[in-house]
């Protein structure tokens, strides 16, 4: 599900089936890293929309957790922690996905499902190659979700 008028309504109707949240963490910068963050944003959007398409009935894709690159770590960590708290009280599984490496140590230490992906430069790619690359990456990611769900069943 996506967080839209129609699908959020469906979400509340079928809440017991949608037990997984997917949160993209998206940095923005206006300095020399700016273009990189633009690319990363598109990349993560494509990846997450593809995952959502495969698992529409079980995953809620949240609007991205967006922050400025220059913001202090403490502030970002605090805000994200409160997001995750809220999500965990509503979902059995919470997956976090980002191209921003700086989250890795914190999130993995606190036992979150964190997927870090290096962003592929999309600027000069034709749509067809873009789709192939994204689909290839998503295929590998799908297993992470299936495995997590299966573990939860067998426990």
């Amino acid at each position, binding site marked *: 599900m996506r967080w839209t008028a129609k699908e959020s309504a*469906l979400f509340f109707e*079928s809440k017991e*089936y*949608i037990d997984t949240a997917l949160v993209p963490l998206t940095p923005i910068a206006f300095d020399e890293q700016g273009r990189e963050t633009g690319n990363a944003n598109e990349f993560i959007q494509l990846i997450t929309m593809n995952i959502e*398409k*495969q*698992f*529409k*009935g*079980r995953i809620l894709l949240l609007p991205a957790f967006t922050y400025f690159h220059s913001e202090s770590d403490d502030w970002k960590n605090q805000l994200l922690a409160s997001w995750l708290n809220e999500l965990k009280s509503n979902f059995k599984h919470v997956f976090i996905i980002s191209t921003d490496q700086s989250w890795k140590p914190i999130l993995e230490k606190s036992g979150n499902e964190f997927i870090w992906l290096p962003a592929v430069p999309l600027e000069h790619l034709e*749509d067809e190659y873009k*789709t192939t690359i994204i689909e290839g990456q998503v295929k590998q990611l*799908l297993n992470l*979700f*299936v495995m997590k*769900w299966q573990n939860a069943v067998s426990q």
Partner: protein
Amino acid sequence: MSDKQRVTRRQFLTYTLMGVGGFMAAGTVMPMLRFAVDPALQAKAGGDLIATGLKESEITNEPQRVDFKFDQQDGWYESQVTQSAWVYKDNNGDIIALSPICKHLGCTVNWNGNEEFPNQFYCPCHFGRYEKDGTNVKGTPPRGPLDRYDYEIKDGVLYLSMRAKPRGGA
């Protein structure tokens, strides 16, 4: 000049009223006629079929996944839509093109998606299952069979409709 037949006032009014009345009558009757003949004027389903790039000779008894793309005008926003289908030939040699969208909550189902359930479509989200012909397996979450695409073979290539159509419940 004077022997040319002159239009009397009475005639003039009659003609004018007949003319205006005629337009008004046409105004009400024409839409009705248009509605009545509309089905006959509809574009044939063939107009909306999309070439898939799969040749008829490549279609086997084993369902295979076909992706096909087309442009869609969505309000003011034009986007490219990718649809997928599971295509195979049944025992009578008829082509079946099933939508991979699970009828439960819309996940994507896969043929032989789970080793424990061979020769079935399997939904990884809530373990819904479908037989080869798309019929939902009782006792799993889906409430109806998988939708089917209309198809056509043109020049040996498979064409599919943009949208799959639902079938009656099992």
